[in-house]
């Protein structure tokens, strides 16, 4: 049981990294990034290839994942600069699908649909429970670091301008903000964070494959961030852990409804997940932690 909880926490931490990435690009910068799974994949593959096939040390792999995510983010951002918000969504979604297609079809580069297995791990696997505890410590530390970074950014003038750009680009540009610079910075930083999440995921499960990066994961993270509050790093983190807790807890509803077949139990579970989310949203339309504004100092 303990292992299971630790495991769920590790997955929750990976989700928390992804959620923070989304919080930055969507919540703060207003860029509807449906391509999250793509950046997740880029990071996972970058680190997996480098450490498994290139035998590089893991920290180097993680750094490479961050860099790869950031660079790809920059490319995507620049190629979509002129797009309106809603339209960015479809193009980024397309980007994630393209990443997945390349990963499955370009066998020479990525190992194809077989994926890459035997990726080196953060803590030796034979350490038993310490494997999970150690991995959790490392990944949670990354979550905390990103959290501190984002909190700092959010409270800085940079974050304030970014929020302004999210609200109205025209007015923000009249206020002298370079829309391109801010968006590119936010988007590629977010992509880099997603890349790191991918790297850690690979180094924990030892396996990456194109199937891992289906749009479902992006949807999950959107749900997590929305439920937690999309403009607060803490909201994103809490949302991510809650989501995993919720996803795991719903497994047990099948036991409450005997007499249903396996498919029915599985569909019941997804029904509960969907309804649960809509319920959270309808009671807290701004998520659990709503956006905080900078208060004027008292005179």
């Amino acid at each position, binding site marked *: 049981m303990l292992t299971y909880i630790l495991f769920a926490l590790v997955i929750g931490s990976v989700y928390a990294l992804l959620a923070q990435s989304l919080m930055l690009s969507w919540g703060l910068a207003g860029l509807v990034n449906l391509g999250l799974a793509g950046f997740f994949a880029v990071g996972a593959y970058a680190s997996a290839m480098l450490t498994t096939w290139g035998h590089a040390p893991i920290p180097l792999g993680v750094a490479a994942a961050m860099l790869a995510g950031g660079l790809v983010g920059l490319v995507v951002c620049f190629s979509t600069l002129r*797009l309106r918000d809603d339209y960015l969504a479809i193009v980024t979604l397309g980007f994630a699908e393209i990443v997945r297609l390349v990963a499955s079809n370009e066998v020479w580069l990525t190992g194809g649909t077989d994926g890459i297995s035997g990726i080196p791990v953060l803590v030796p696997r034979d350490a038993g429970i310490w494997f999970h505890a150690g991995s959790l410590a490392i990944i949670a530390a990354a979550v905390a670091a990103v959290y501190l970074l984002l909190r700092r950014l959010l409270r800085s003038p940079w974050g304030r301008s970014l929020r302004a750009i999210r609200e109205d680009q025209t007015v923000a540009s009249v206020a002298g903000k370079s829309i391109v610079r801010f968006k590119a910075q936010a988007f590629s930083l977010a992509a880099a964070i997603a890349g790191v999440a991918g790297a850690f995921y690979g180094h924990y499960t030892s396996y990456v494959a194109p199937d891992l990066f289906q749009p479902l994961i992006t949807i999950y993270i959107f749900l997590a961030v929305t439920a937690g509050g999309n403009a607060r790093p803490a909201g994103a983190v809490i949302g991510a852990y809650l989501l995993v807790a919720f996803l795991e807890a719903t497994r047990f509803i099948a036991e409450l409804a005997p007499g249903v077949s396996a498919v029915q139990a599985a569909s019941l579970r997804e029904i509960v997940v969907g309804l649960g989310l809509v319920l959270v949203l309808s009671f807290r*339309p701004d998520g659990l932690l709503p956006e905080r504004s900078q208060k004027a100092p008292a005179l």
Partner: protein
Amino acid sequence: MDAVLQALINGIISGTLLAVPALGFSAIFAVLRFPNFAIGALATAGAYCAWVVNVGLGLPIPVAIVAAFVGAALVGALLEYGALERLGRGGALMKAIGSLAMGMVIENIVRFIFGNDLRAFDLPLARDIVFGPIRVGPQQLNNLVLALVIMAAVWAFLSLTSLGRSMRAVADNPDLARLKGVNPRFIALVTVAIGSGLCGIGGTLIGLDTAIDPLVGGRVLLSVFAAAVLGGLGSIPGAVAGAFLIGIVEEFTVLALSPAYRLAVGFIVILVVLTVRPSGLLGSKAN
């Protein structure tokens, strides 16, 4: 050359399958100003309604199509009324996310009831009619005609009735619309019902062409969304144009490149089109 012509025809045919749900999606967007991602599941729900009527009750296909429209319209309206409307407070994206979640719910309700089995309509399959080097399926011709009729009907409905104008007015400025005597909730429900109904018909047309399972709508969700965006979100003729373009581009990809990259090419076309025309093929300029 023949291959190109044939691919063009095939593209138009697959375009019609996308056009009807894209129309529904765009109509909903035009009035409620949010992308309703539940349309995939609504298409599935409609297709299953049609299936029950056709196979379960043994009624003919035209009746089944009407059933699909009605069934999906009811589900869609219920969804809006029961769940999505109250998410509107949190903004359009909140509704979009909510629709994603509710889509998941509907799809799984269908799965709960019908299971994952593949089901087919009671409809004989005809061999293609061959004109020289070109071949076309009679069923697909039927679909094409049906889709065109639906598009014309929707267009006429929106532009010739005052309801269409009220819909645009609500989309633009709901408070002012209320002051002018329009009930925005009613308009929203009517729109959602029509849009969802169209998705239901779309799902059924796909089912008639292939077979249905709980994922039937989900599989085309992406292409439908892409078609609507390509045409300009909220533009009715745009959705149709976008659907045909996506359909044709995808078929040409099969000819020119690996069919596995069909989606990728589709997206690159979208990117190019949107870069040249930031508001889509026929979309109106925002702001």
